Every structure is written in C-alpha cells, then in structure tokens.
C-alpha cells in the first residue's frame, strides 16, 4: 500500500494510490476524519485530490496528516446502499450481449447480480462512475457517441457503469433507463450518488 503525493498548485495535493480500492479506503477515512482546512475531497480512479483553504492550513500540514492515516483493507464496510430500478430496454443491450458473450439476458443478470460502488463523480453533476465486482461487463465506449442521451439512461463504458443525471451527449453503451431522479439541486444532498455509496440495480417491467 503506497501513497505518492503529487504537487497540484499552491492549495491542493494529489494523492496517487495503488488502485481504486485504496482510493475508496483513504476517501472513507478522510470523510470520517477530515484534516482541518481541507475544503474538497475529490476521489478518482487512482487518485484522491485534496484542496485546502490556504488561510487555514498549508499543503505540507495536510500531506503529513494524510501520510499518517492507516488504511484498513478493502472498501468501506458500512456504506449506504441505493437501489436503482431499471427497465432494461436500452439501444445497446444487444451489442453489449454480443461483445461480452453473455447475451441480452445474461447482461441483465450480470448487471443486477452484483453490488456496484460509486468510485467518483464527474462528467456532470450527480454522475457517478460505478465499479462492479468483476470484469464480465467491461466493454469499450461506442465508436460513435450519441448527440443526445436521455436523463435516466443506464450505461456501460470501460470498467464503469453509470446513470445519466440529465439529457446530454454521450458515448456509453446503453442498457436501459431508470425513473429515479439522480440529481435535484433542491434536494439535500442534491445527488442520489456520492463516492463510496453502494448501488444495486433491480430490473422492473416497462410501464
């Protein structure tokens, strides 16, 4: 388990870790016990970005505090689980079944049959990059991104699954759609998903 501290301007440090599990473990530790003066904790695939308020603390002090964190093994145990009902009628379901060799029903079974973890956010407010428990559903992005993907579309790209929080262009392979509202700025918190939260997809019939 190693941490590399990379400079990131005068008020942030980028911590590079071995893998996503280490990122999630360090993120869970720092959410529970945030060093004073840290104003943003932004996890990503292999890194955790810490932004500090330089009026309160310095990057050096925060780096020392993070270096002293002793990480448990594996992911945060007591994370909250969110259920996402999905109608599996996506335009790329057949193609994903072909690419993975699982067939359409096999893809649905693999997608609903594992627990996903929100690794990090990005691309749009409330968009979570979800990682699963195995690599059965790892597929490339579409060669031709769509100019319009509707809100609630559930897709796959690379090692991730994700749910579009609003209509946008996108290159993910679409498996289906959900009616759950992923993002609502009037809600607190505004996003249904946040780093560390677990996700279970549940198949529901089309209405």
């Amino acid at each position: 388990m190693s941490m590399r501290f990379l400079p990131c301007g005068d008020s942030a440090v980028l911590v590079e870790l071995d893998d996503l599990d280490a990122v999630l473990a360090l993120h869970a530790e720092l959410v529970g016990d945030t060093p004073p003066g840290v104003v943003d904790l932004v996890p990503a695939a292999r890194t955790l970005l810490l932004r500090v308020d330089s009026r309160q603390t310095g990057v050096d002090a925060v780096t020392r505090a993070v270096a002293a964190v002793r990480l448990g093994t594996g992911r945060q145990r007591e994370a909250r689980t969110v259920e996402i009902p999905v109608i599996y009628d996506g335009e790329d379901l057949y193609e994903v079944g072909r690419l993975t060799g699982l067939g359409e029903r096999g893809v649905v079974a693999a997608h609903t049959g594992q627990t996903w973890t929100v690794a990090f956010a990005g691309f749009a407010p409330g968009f979570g990059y979800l990682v699963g428990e195995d690599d059965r559903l790892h597929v490339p992005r579409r060669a031709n991104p769509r100019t319009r993907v509707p809100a609630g579309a559930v897709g796959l790209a690379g090692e991730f699954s994700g749910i579009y929080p609003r209509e946008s262009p996108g290159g993910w392979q679409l498996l289906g759609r959900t009616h759950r509202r992923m993002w609502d700025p009037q809600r607190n918190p505004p996003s249904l998903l946040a780093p560390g939260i677990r996700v279970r997809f549940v198949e529901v019939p089309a209405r």
Partner: protein
Amino acid sequence: MITVVRAGPLTTVQDLGRPGWAHLGVPVSGALDAPALRLANRLVGNPDGTAGLEITAGRYAMSVARAATVALTGADAGLTVAGRPAPFGAPVAVPNGATVEVGPARHGVRSYLAIAGGVDVPAVLGSRSTDTLSGLGPKRLCDGDELPLGEPTGEPSGVDFVPTSVPRGDLVLRVRLGPRDDWFTDPTELLTEAYTVDVNSNRVGARLTGRPLTRAVTDELPSEGIVLGAVQVPANGQPLVFLADHPTTGGYPVIGVVDEADLPLLAQARPGDRVRFRLS
C-alpha cells in the same frame, strides 16, 4: 427589477461561485475576474458575495425599474446612464426607469456590473452563478429578460475613482509544475516560448496555441481531480488553462497549475494576446 434591453455576446449572473461540491461533479463557477466583481460590489455597498453581471466583451443594455446605484469594473468599457457618460470604476446613481448601457470592451474581455442590492435570482447550492458547463444557476441573459433585485444593505462607497488593472501586452502567468509534469519529455518547454490565447477560450478554460508540448508517457491517464488553474495538455499538445467552469475531473495530464492570483489576468486576455509562463 432590471429588464435586459440588449444582452450582448454573453452576459451571465455571477457571484463567488459554489465551492465544496466537486466530489459530486459540480464545478466551482463564479466570476472569472473575482477581484473585479468584489470591487464593483464594494463600490455600490454590497457584501462581497453579492451576485452581479459578468458582461463578456461589452455591448450590454438594461433598464432599472427603481432608483439604484451601479458600478462597472473589470474590462474597461464606456458606461452611459440615460444616455449620459458615467465614470468607470466608480459608484453611479441611476434614476428610476433609466437605461444603463455598457459599450464595447476597450481593454480586457469581462466587465462586471454591480447593482446595489444585487441580482436576486434563486440560489442553487448556495450560489446564483451561471455555470456554463453543467447548466446550474440562471440561464445566460437574453434580450427582454427581467431579473429581480435585492434590497440594498449598505451605503455606496464614497470614493471618486478606483484604478483598475486589466493587463495590456504580454501576460506572464506564474505556474507550479505538477502533478503530471513527469508525463512530458521536458516540462520546462512550457516556460520557453510565448503562447497565443485562442478564440475558442471560454468560461471553462483559456485555450492556448503555440509550440506543442511533447509527451514522454503516451498511456491513457485514468481520470483524476482537477483544480482551478490546472494546465491540461490534450492529445494535440496545446495547453488549456482551466477557469471557473472547469470539469471536476479529467483524463489528460496536467503539466502544472497557474497561481490562483494570476487567473483574473488570464480571464481578461483576449484572443490573440500572448501569454508566457514562469515558475512561481
């Protein structure tokens, strides 16, 4: 209330943004030249975080449906009230119903118009800023829009004039190398020659063109968190400096980070202006 008579090329409502939501994918947003907005607010007696207007390249006009105090700062542009010239960088009294016009920007890009009481559109996640990347906050202004004003809470400043400093000529930005300077064959290439501000620059980032930076590592970088001022180098080797509406994560290596204090200067650089980097 104000009524937009002419929105101009791009006018948005801006305050000091919505920091602290990056973990949910929310850009910080806010005025690109925050010191200029703070100054405009101070001139009209508003608290620092009050929402004003960020006017890109000028050519904006509105009518104000009450007597008010306004101040224009940032990019230098002519200001008229009810057709009469009014001073830049100073509190200006506007009679009830008068039209306020901002002419084309003479130097710089972004002017800030503060109105006593502030623009009182609903706040989203604690900010009234228009976020052009994610669509949070009010939409960009259009001709005919009506915006509510808040109640003034302070007295206009007694100053006659405040000197402002929008850059002219070559701009020098202080930069700290990293986090991914080791992905380039020679990261100090960034420091050797001037770059030109590209016309495709916007609130997300200032695109620069010049000598392309060469990569030592050509792997795909897994997405990682991005800070304000990050100098990202996409596949074409031309650096892009992220401004307030930047995405919270990105998958191209960041060669260095510009000091936050220098970003307002970059936000005022025009397409064609030259930019140099030096180590902070």
